[in-house]
């Protein structure tokens, strides 16, 4: 289930990324927030009560959408999902666990 519904610009090219280790896809030009919320109903859980959150202001003010992101085998970064554009093969975590390093798939 998704939280956000696409109404426009659906012809943008598809981009693969990884959510909690699982390959999923979004569209070029998506923010991390859009990418996650068009395939899931939540972005993260809160630190103190574990309640689900999915961003709020979408313009970098509420700071409710920080997520852990890894590019390749690089270090884990914490990025604001509403103001970071998705890049292909990013690995994102919606839990407190760091996003896994995604192993290169052998070419068929």
């Amino acid at each position, binding site marked *: 289930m998704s939280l956000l519904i696409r109404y426009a610009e659906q012809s943008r090219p598809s981009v693969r990324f990884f959510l909690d280790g699982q390959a999923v896809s979004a569209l070029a030009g998506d923010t991390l927030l859009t990418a996650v*919320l068009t395939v899931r109903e939540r972005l993260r859980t*809160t630190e103190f009560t574990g309640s689900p959150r999915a961003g709020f*202001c*979408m313009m970098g003010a509420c700071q409710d959408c920080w997520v852990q992101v890894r590019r390749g085998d690089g270090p884990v970064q914490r990025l604001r999902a509403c103001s970071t554009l998705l890049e292909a093969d990013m690995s994102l975590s919606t839990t407190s666990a760091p996003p896994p390093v995604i192993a290169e798939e052998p070419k068929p």
Partner: protein
Amino acid sequence: MSQSPLPPVVIGAGPAGIRAAVTLARHGLSPILLDESPRPGGQIYRQPPAGPGQRSASELYGFEAAKATAIHQALAPYADRIDYRPDTLVWNVERGALDLLSNGRTATLAYHSLIFATGATDRVLPMPGWTMPGVFTLGGAQIALKAQGCGIGSTVVFLGTGPLLYLIAYQYAKAGATVAAVLDTSAFGLRIKHLPGLLALPKVLAKGLYYTAWLKAYGVPVYTGITPVRAEGNERVASVIWQDSAGRQQHTACDGLGIGYGLRPETQLADMAGCAFSFNPLDRAWLPDRDSAGRSSLAGVYLAGDGAGITGADAAEVGGERAALALLQDQGATIDPSRVAVLEKRMAAFVRFRTALLQAFPLPAARWAETVSDDLVLCRCEEITAGDLRATVRKDQPRDLNRLKALSRIGMGRCQGRMCGAAAAELLAHQHGCAVNDIARIRPQTPIKPIPIGVTPENTP
């Protein structure tokens, strides 16, 4: 003219900042324009990321397409003169210099003259259920549609007050969403009462009336004078409970809810720079002092657009140009007095209009503070409840929001009170039975938005 050796700096590339930068460039200066977003336009004229499939301006901005396009294209003719730096967060102001974060690097930029055009975000009053997935700010709901082509749901409710409520409902309905209800806390009668002031800008009023009429024509239920009760759902919003103007409880099913009560300016940087502030009773907010040209209390520091007080996008363009002319004049340049007169006359009309608008769509602060229950989360970041606030008041009698913050953690989280500040102020004042201007304002702290520990310093003058 005796030009300052450092280029003027403009913070924010929305309508105010762009008009300011262009005005400076047109008068021969080479301003630096700093903006957090990747593309110019601010939140109001926010652009989707470039790429195939992008909608046209008229699809994106409707009636405002021409203005939006003009703003987007305004920098291009001055590309060699305006040092436009997108993706740049200003995270600190200190002793005549700014600290910038861009691409993981931090740099210090000294200034002699500075225009704050930092914009605004939604003002929110919390309601039970407001932290659930599927609940967004009104502005957030609009940004999703504008910048990402996404809606916050397929059956949506918009709740709060202000003209944005109607505009967004219209935009969502046009996009193909089912707008289950528009729920306005302001009574319809207030709009009639303040009609004379709203007539200060007949064209803007006409647009507002058009959206309202359109919603009615397309069968979108609009209710005024409502009281929000709660959002319900199992880990995502599924319905809104509200009271109609007759006091009857109503239930509206939805899978997306937008809430907002007008806008609140982003004043942290002006505050940190040391600008004097005064309480504005109409906005129920502390705003940086400025003269009619946008001069702050500090020499060389100017204010424009919604970041200095909410007057809207059209006024922001005027204010940006006016502040730039003031800067030029203060640096000894010759400016066109007739242009100044035109701008100030237009600004006066905006101010009359916005005054009426704020009276027609007031923040329902008193009713909210009287009814807020102890278990309501006020501070999303730290998950601090109204009960926590009240317990702190009983224990320590904080007479100031900063003391309340120190003891309760309200406003101490990542957003530094941007989302909970209005609510905390209203509730603290209510608990003390004092006016909301008697409890000071939350002091901004460096960095005004989170920055990574692993930043790389870069020494650029």
